[in-house]
């Protein structure tokens, strides 16, 4: 069977015609498979939604209980056959509940990886390789300039700065779903045992992580307190809050930002970031290459990001690569440009 008969791009997203099902559709459709809970992939208003139970819970928390007509949970490794196509999910290592979707039919295997990373993340199970014929990959950081350092290394940078400026509050911009909880968990792993303060916008998802058994220690909401109360504190906030009056409640706030984009100095400076933390939930350039080779796929479809560079590299490896130019997928790591 031709891979394109199993799955092919349409304006709404990747479409499986035999199953009449879309993967991460950007517009409301009858049947959707959702890889993970970030808002550009997980939109409200679909008829039926198939996803991991964690992703369903995240969608419920972010979009409200009526986000879809009906929902069905699929565990990692479990299989479901729809219209003759066998679907299964494997961990993508991106955020809690994130999954790659494998669609199999007539011995042909197409894997849609969604967003993924290979670096360790204490808040979600690690990425699993799925051997396949077609590997559909993101390319958010597909340039040789992107080699992410370890998250521990970056968090130690933050702790060093906190020790150097005990009179200041360190405000860390981190995307509300995934990045914020990963930073919290990494802080704990690096020995930070004081309370972590969180902006109100982070609390619901953080609580959800806790319910799914992810231990984040003592996380407290930011409350009205004299400035000096936050001296030496680490405060997490959505990136969009960094340039709002909200930060004025803290003593001499040091602006930090956890994102893969922080590797580029100009990006950090444009945002007025004092301490860039290169922590990304997307695969970096070496990991994109490694993953593509490990899947054994002969054909690579690229959904979004720096498709030209990745397609060029694939061609050099003798792999058949094409850019799908799917629109509507943003990049949560760049969120917060406009306040």
């Amino acid at each position, binding site marked *: 069977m031709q891979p394109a008969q199993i799955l092919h791009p349409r304006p709404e997203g990747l479409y499986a015609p035999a199953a009449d099902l879309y993967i991460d559709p950007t517009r409301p459709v009858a049947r959707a498979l959702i890889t993970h809970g970030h808002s550009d992939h997980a939109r409200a208003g679909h008829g039926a939604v198939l996803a991991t139970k964690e992703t369903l819970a995240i969608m419920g928390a972010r979009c409200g209980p009526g986000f879809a007509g009906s929902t069905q949970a699929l565990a990692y490794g479990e299989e479901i056959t729809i219209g003759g196509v066998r679907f299964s999910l494997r961990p993508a290592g991106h955020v809690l509940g994130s999954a790659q979707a494998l669609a199999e039919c007539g011995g042909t295997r197409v894997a849609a990886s969604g967003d993924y990373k290979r670096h360790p993340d204490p808040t979600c199970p690690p990425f699993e390789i799925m051997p396949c014929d077609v590997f559909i990959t993101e390319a958010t950081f597909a340039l040789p*300039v992107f080699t992410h350092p370890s998250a521990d290394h970056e968090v130690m940078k933050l702790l060093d700065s906190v020790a150097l400026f005990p009179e200041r509050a360190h405000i860390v911009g981190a995307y509300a779903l995934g990045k914020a909880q990963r930073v919290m968990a990494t802080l704990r792993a690096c020995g930070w045992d004081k309370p972590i303060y969180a902006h109100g916008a982070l609390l619901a998802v953080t609580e959800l992580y806790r319910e799914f058994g992810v231990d984040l220690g003592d996380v407290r909401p930011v409350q009205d307190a004299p400035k000096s109360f936050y001296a030496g504190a680490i405060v997490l906030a959505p990136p969009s809050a960094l340039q709002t009056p909200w930060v004025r409640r803290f003593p001499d706030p040091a602006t930090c930002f956890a994102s893969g984009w922080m590797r580029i100095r100009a990006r950090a400076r444009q945002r007025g970031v004092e301490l860039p933390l290169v922590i990304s939930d997307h695969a970096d350039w070496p990991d994109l290459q490694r993953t593509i080779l490990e899947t054994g796929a002969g054909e690579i479809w690229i959904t979004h990001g720096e498709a030209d560079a990745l397609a060029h590299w694939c061609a050099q490896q003798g792999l058949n690569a094409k850019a799908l130019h799917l629109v509507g997928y943003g990049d949560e790591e760049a969120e917060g440009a406009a306040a």
Partner: protein
Amino acid sequence: MNRFAALLDRLAYEPRRLGKLALLETYFRDTPDPDRGWALAAMTGALNFKNAKAGLIRTLAAERTDPVLFALSYDFVGDLAETVSLMWPADSARANATLSLSDVVEGLQTTPKGELPGRVAAWLDRLDENGRWALLKLITGALRIGVSARLARTALARLGGREPDEIEDVWHADAPPYLKLFAWLEGRGPAPSANTSVRFYPPMLSHPIEPEALEDFDPAEFCAEWKWDGIRVQAAAGIDAYGQRAAHLFTRTGEDASDAFPDLVGAFDFEAVLDGELLIRREGRVQDFNTLQQRLNRKSATAKLMAEFPAFIRVYDLLALGKEDLRALPFAARREQLESFAAAHPFAPIDLSPLISFNTWDELAAARAKPADGGAGVDAEAVEGVMIKRRDAPYLAGRPKGYWFKWKRDPMAIDAVLMYAQRGSGKRSSYYSDYTFGVWSGDELTPVGKAYFGFTDEELAELDRFVRANTLNRFGPVREVTHTKAKGLVLEVAFEGLQRSRRHKSGLAMRFPRISRIRWDKPPRDADTLDTLEQLLQRGETAEG
């Protein structure tokens, strides 16, 4: 190299001046010679490697990286040194922390051209990505870490418990890696002294004065000159501390601007240090600041730029002649020597700033009001007031009281309406602190300028609140605020001058606009019109023309 790389990295992200000073002071204190001296040289622009330039980096990138991926990456990152440092194929097995800044600097200076690419590539293999960035920044020369030469010398002053001007006095007596300088700062040696006068002298600055205050002074004890609207510079040429012929152009903060003005510096045929104003002269008349700005804005001095914007220095003081420091002499005596100096150097790119003849303060006031008739002639457009100097004043660094005064022309002011506000940076990053304002042209507002100072911290907080509460649209860091005839905010904007400009929609450009008052009381419909500005402009043109 690690320490230097870490310093550059921290400085690049530190927005606060005091934070930068603290980082520099700590680095100078904790880093041994000669590394700290080379770092100082790198930050003050005193390093120049004959064979190691940006071209070398491109060559290495072409050898070690895929050309398509390099082009895509460079396009994304936008900085050559940063792109190569990030994508250089790392070899962590060979990483070696013992490479010192001195090894690198001395290697860049002494390695023969043919061996240099191999040498630099071997270093890049041994450094981590931050170290690679620092090395490549050394080669390209533009560090872009927000540290001026003056700031670096201020940090040295803090290290040694001295005044920044004391550092200037010894700066040119030592050369990289500044061993004598650090020894003196740490109390281990005498102040470096040089058998030369070719150096930067911290400039003497003036106090503003009001006409009423002049009545207390006897006009006979003073000289007056035009205050030219250019940039303050020092021209220094002669034999330096090492017996070499040297020529420099310094800005008022001691930055060496020689590279941007090779047409001037190359023509310094004298042994002296002159204080004066850098100006542009076209068709026999000195141009306004707006024209000068067009040359200042360009990074490299091309032949075309130099021909289009011919620069010269209008000199008004002589600080050193030959090897002799003249600063202790009274102004009148220095002026006498300056006049004979200028007469003896007809081919140098300088001319003498004339004295204004006056017997009473009223006569000076008349000249100031109409410079064209008061002696400035065709150059009147470049006059921004008068300077009044005591005949017996020595030349003293800084702003000493009672010697030099500036009597500026009265600022102009208009009432304009706030149209857009942009977030500031650093300490102001959560505040909307840059304001675009407009005046009425019929029923529409036309933007006429942008101002980001003139208000107090309390006023800034109030302006910020107004912007947030009256936002119409958002464009990235910019907000459009309500500006109808009935609703909006009127700002009284003061400025130093008005010029025609084709680059602005209004056809006008303001000089030094600032918020002088916030008119919470005034409805936008009562703000000024473009016609008012046009009249101000024409009045200026006829008064000076």
